[in-house]
Structure formats: structure tokens, C-alpha cells
């Protein structure tokens, strides 16, 4: 089933939160590590019947991997909220997190999950993190390990709302504010307008409307 627009925006915000929260624990956040941290956070949420992250993960060359997450990371870079290399949060990322405090408080369980995952795994060297993930038990009978399942095996997918004990709560107003912060289509307008104010001459009413 295709993800809803709401789920996409929530995913992007949770990823941004994970990135900002991890900065104090790791200085070189590469995509492989980031993919694993999101995987662990989503898995933990699913294990606790929390519908937060909605990424599809499959087994790939270096363990669980999500193409949707890769796309979202590119979008966050494109909006200049996150800077390459190492996915460093820009000042704007903190502004977004600060201005959605109410939403963070309302959904504190989800953010605590992310925080705990970062606390446990973000400071690990990539090799150690991969080793840990490869050795995780997998399958219904837990008789296999992540390392032993074959390539392209689906690993995680969005939880159905009816199966969730708790769903990430966001108001329509918050969603609309989030979408214009996290979608490059909108942030480009903001950027161009701000640049025009910084460098251009203000126009009078008649110059605009004739």
C-alpha cells in the first residue's frame, strides 16, 4: 500500500529529529549508519505497536536499507536543513525542532524511542553497529539472523493503523507548517524571496498591480 502524504511528512520530521539528536554522539554520520539507526528506531516502534516511522526496509548489501529514506535524506539536503557531508543539521533544523515543541511533547514516546536508540547505537563505530545488526535474530521463529537472510528480503513496512497501540499525533495545521519546511518545492520559494529582499529594491503597490 502506498504511503500517505501525512506519513511521508511524519517520516521526514522523525528522520530530522534522529539526525539532530545524534549529533552529540557521532561526528561522522554516514548514510549507512543513518539507515541502520532509523531501522533500529522503526523496529523498536513496531515491536511496541507504535506507528511512527513508515519506511519500507529490505535486506541490501550492508543489511537493512530503505530507498524511501535515501530519497528523504536527499530532500532534507536539498532544503538545506541538513548539510553534507555527514548529514549535519543546519541552524534551520534546530529552528524547526524548537517551533514544533508542542508536537514533540504530545508524541514524546516516539521521540524517546529515537533518543534511546541514538544513546545506545549512534556512538558505535560503523563496523560494530553492522556486526550487531547482522547478528540480530530474524524471522517469525527467530531462527535466522539479519545477516543470514537473503538479499532483497522485505524487513520492515508501515504498520497498519488498526494494529497500532499508539499513532503519531499531528494536527492539520502542524502538517501544513511541516510540509512547507520539509519540502524543497516550498523552501525554494522562501529562499528566492529572502534573497530578493536581501539584494533587491522594494516595490510599491502600483509597480506590482499597475
Amino acid at each position: 500500500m502506498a504511503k500517505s502524504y501525512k506519513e511521508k511528512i511524519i517520516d521526514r520530521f522523525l528522520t530530522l529529529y534522529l539526525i539532530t539528536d545524534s549529533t552529540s554522539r557521532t561526528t561522522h554520520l554516514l548514510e549507512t549508519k543513518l539507515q541502520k539507526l532509523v531501522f533500529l528506531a522503526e523496529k523498536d516502534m513496531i515491536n511496541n505497536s507504535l506507528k511512527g516511522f513508515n519506511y519500507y526496509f529490505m535486506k541490501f548489501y550492508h543489511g537493512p536499507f530503505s530507498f524511501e529514506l535515501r530519497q528523504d535524506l536527499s530532500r532534507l539536503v536539498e532544503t538545506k536543513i541538513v548539510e553534507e557531508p555527514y548529514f549535519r543539521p543546519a541552524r534551520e533544523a534546530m529552528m524547526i525542532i524548537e517551533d514544533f515543541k508542542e508536537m514533540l511533547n504530545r508524541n514524546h514516546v516516539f521521540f524517546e524511542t529515537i533518543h534511546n536508540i541514538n544513546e545506545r547505537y549512534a556512538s558505535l563505530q560503523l563496523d560494530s553497529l553492522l556486526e550487531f545488526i547482522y547478528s540480530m535474530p530474524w524471522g517469525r521463529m527467530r531462527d535466522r539472523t539479519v545477516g543470514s537472510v537473503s538479499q532483497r528480503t522485505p524487513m520492515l513496512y508501515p504498520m497498519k493503523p488498526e494494529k497500532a497501540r499508539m499513532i503519531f499525533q499531528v494536527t492539520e495545521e502542524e502538517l501544513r507548517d511541516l510540509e512547507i519546511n520539509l519540502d524543497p518545492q516550498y523552501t525554494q520559494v522562501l529562499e528566492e524571496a529572502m534573497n530578493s529582499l536581501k539584494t533587491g529594491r522594494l516595490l510599491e503597490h502600483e509597480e506590482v498591480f499597475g
Partner: protein
Amino acid sequence: MRKYLGRYVPEYSPHFKKQKLPPDVLERVENNLIPDLIADPYHNTEFGKGRYRGKRYKWINRFDRLFFVICEECRGLNHQRYNLCRECEDTSDNKIIVAFVILGHKY
């Protein structure tokens, strides 16, 4: 925050003019929103969040919103660090700067 008691004077960012707004949106901005903002830019308007800090907005319709800055408020709240207008020093407190329109909210 409001100090100025007369009618406010709108000025526009060059980008606002450059934006290719649909005729119905442009008409609504000119005939409904600007007169309202001139009369009282604080009424029925809110601050943007995150990257839109320091700018107020007013909905044009269900999907589009107009972002603007009230000069007296921007100075009073030290929002110049977000807005960085080149002509700030030459702009009086009774000005409102119409900055841009965000079109087509998907949600």
C-alpha cells in the same frame, strides 16, 4: 506590539512580482488581503514556524498563503536576523513587506 494607528503601507519583494501567481490568487490578494493588511496586519494573521520565523502569514484560500513582514514588529522583536531586508534602515515602521506566496499546499 502595534504602535502605528493609521493605515499601513504595503511594499513588495521583487520575488513577489516575479512569482507567476494564478489570476484568481492575485486578484484575491489585491482586492481582499492587501486592504485587510493595510487596515490591521495583526488581525487574523499568525507567525510562520521553523524556517518561516519572523514572517506572518494570512491564508488566501484553502491551499495558498501569503507571507509578509510588519516592519515595526520585525524591529521590536529583533526579527531582522531572520528577514535581512536590504532597505531596512530606510523603511518606516508603518510599512508591511509582502514577501511571497506559498502555492498549493498538498495537505
